[in-house]
């Protein structure tokens, strides 16, 4: 059931998509990042490269995206409003398209208070909805926020994030509608552990007709220790782990928590697949990226189901293994074709 390269093509085909989250290294060595990406080649449709996730400094997302593409997986470049004003956001977006990054995920970003530089300036010149709006104007109208024309229009698939579980509950689907109105074509969610609550949110999403104009990828991931469980229950704002999941993880011996966590994750993926309007899952397993293939296998998502040939950089249009990703005279992001603008 190969459908050609890329996250957008996978979603347009109606097949269930899989993306995974990769946190770039705190260092200048691309090898550490390559090691995280390589096991996912051919198994996922794209990898998100985080942008100073949790307000902790890491290798920039654009560079991590290039490393991931060279390693053979299509990147989704995350871009937050926390560290850049509107000039830098727009120039980084142009840069992403120029070097062939086909997907961007535009988000507000965690507050610096939670990171490794709590003394930093929180920028937040735009919010995520405004950034989505700016990006779509750049791509579809060829204009900057200033109104100035672009010489060449960028061509990314534009994504957003949403947390279905945080208050105000009644506003969360509407907030995604705002993002879709502004420009979001796909959305990845916060971790889903509370499947009934997620299903309720999805019902609202469908009532708004959002599933018809914005692809939804549900965030999932394994809880691999009781320490992680405690942290996720109390230390991560906006994350809800139901008592039943908590009970199951505490009911097994300490050395079996990780396995039980992965089993729960696979079960949740199975339940999510049954919910109408869900187009895929986004697997987040920070520090455990090498375990993602086993989770996908357990969930029945690890078949030879990814793109044609699915191996190596040539699958990413424009990127040539071992050579510069900037062939002379290549126009911006030719890989997207004309499939896109809805």
């Amino acid at each position, binding site marked *: 059931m190969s459908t050609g390269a890329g996250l957008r093509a996978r979603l347009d085909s109606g097949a269930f998509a899989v993306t995974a989250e990769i946190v770039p290294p705190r260092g200048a060595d691309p090898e550490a990042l390559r090691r995280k990406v390589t096991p996912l080649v051919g198994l996922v449709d794209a990898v998100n490269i985080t942008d100073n996730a949790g307000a902790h400094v890491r290798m920039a997302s654009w560079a991590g995206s290039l490393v991931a593409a060279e390693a053979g997986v299509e990147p989704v470049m995350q871009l937050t*409003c*926390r560290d850049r004003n*509107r000039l830098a956001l727009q120039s980084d977006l142009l840069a992403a398209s120029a070097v062939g990054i086909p997907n961007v995920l535009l988000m*507000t970003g*965690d*507050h610096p*208070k*939670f990171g490794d530089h709590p003394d930093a300036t*929180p920028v*937040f*010149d*735009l*919010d*995520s*909805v*405004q950034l989505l*709006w*700016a990006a*779509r*104007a750049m791509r*579809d*109208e060829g*204009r*900057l*926020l*200033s*109104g100035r024309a672009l010489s060449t229009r960028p061509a990314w698939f534009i994504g957003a*994030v*949403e*947390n279905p579980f*945080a*208050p*105000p509950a*009644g*506003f969360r689907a*509407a*907030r995604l*509608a*705002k993002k879709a*109105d*502004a*420009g979001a074509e796909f959305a990845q969610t*916060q971790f889903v552990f509370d499947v009934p609550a997620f299903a309720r949110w999805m019902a609202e999403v469908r009532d708004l007709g959002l599933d018809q104009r914005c692809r939804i990828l549900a965030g999932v991931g394994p809880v691999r220790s009781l320490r992680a469980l405690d942290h996720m229950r109390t230390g991560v*704002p*906006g994350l*809800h782990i139901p008592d039943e999941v908590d009970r199951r993880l505490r009911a097994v011996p300490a050395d079996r928590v990780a396995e039980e966590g992965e089993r729960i994750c696979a079960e949740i993926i199975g339940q999510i697949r049954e919910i109408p309007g869900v187009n895929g899952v986004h697997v987040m397993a920070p520090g455990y990226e090498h375990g993602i293939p086993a989770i996908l296998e357990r969930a029945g998502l690890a078949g030879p189901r990814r793109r044609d040939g699915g191996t190596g950089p040539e699958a990413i249009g424009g990127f040539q293994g071992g050579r510069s990703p900037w062939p002379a005279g290549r126009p911006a992001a030719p890989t997207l074709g004309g499939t896109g603008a809805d």
Partner: protein
Amino acid sequence: MLAPNAAYRGLAGALARAPAALRVFTAAEKVTKGAAFGCRMCGQCTLPVTGYACPATCPKQLRNGPCGGVGADGSCEVFPDLRCVWVVAYERAEREGRVADLLVFQRPVDHRRSGQSAWVSYWRGDDETLWAAPGARQVGAMPERRR
């Protein structure tokens, strides 16, 4: 109460021509709105469509709704002692049947207007481009604003 009418427009026009009077008026606006809403004098007031909860008091300055980090009890993730501005805005909007107000797309703020009187701008019609109707095709460049 503050909706533009001929008297307010006249007042705004007069203030715009009298720098000293405008300074006094702006200072008065800062004191009253600061006391009532925690106003930060961004100069582009959204209070009428945010249930009079000021989004400039959000640590992330979010103008288009809450972030994903709101606590289960509705607390701000950055300052847990405070309630999320957008939770307050939503509760008020729901009570008043004005949730549609929150769906309005708020364009990026013009930082040149920080510290200026939002009332004068509002009465002079400078805020007409500040937000767009929900569901409208919102792509478009920032319109030029009067200085």
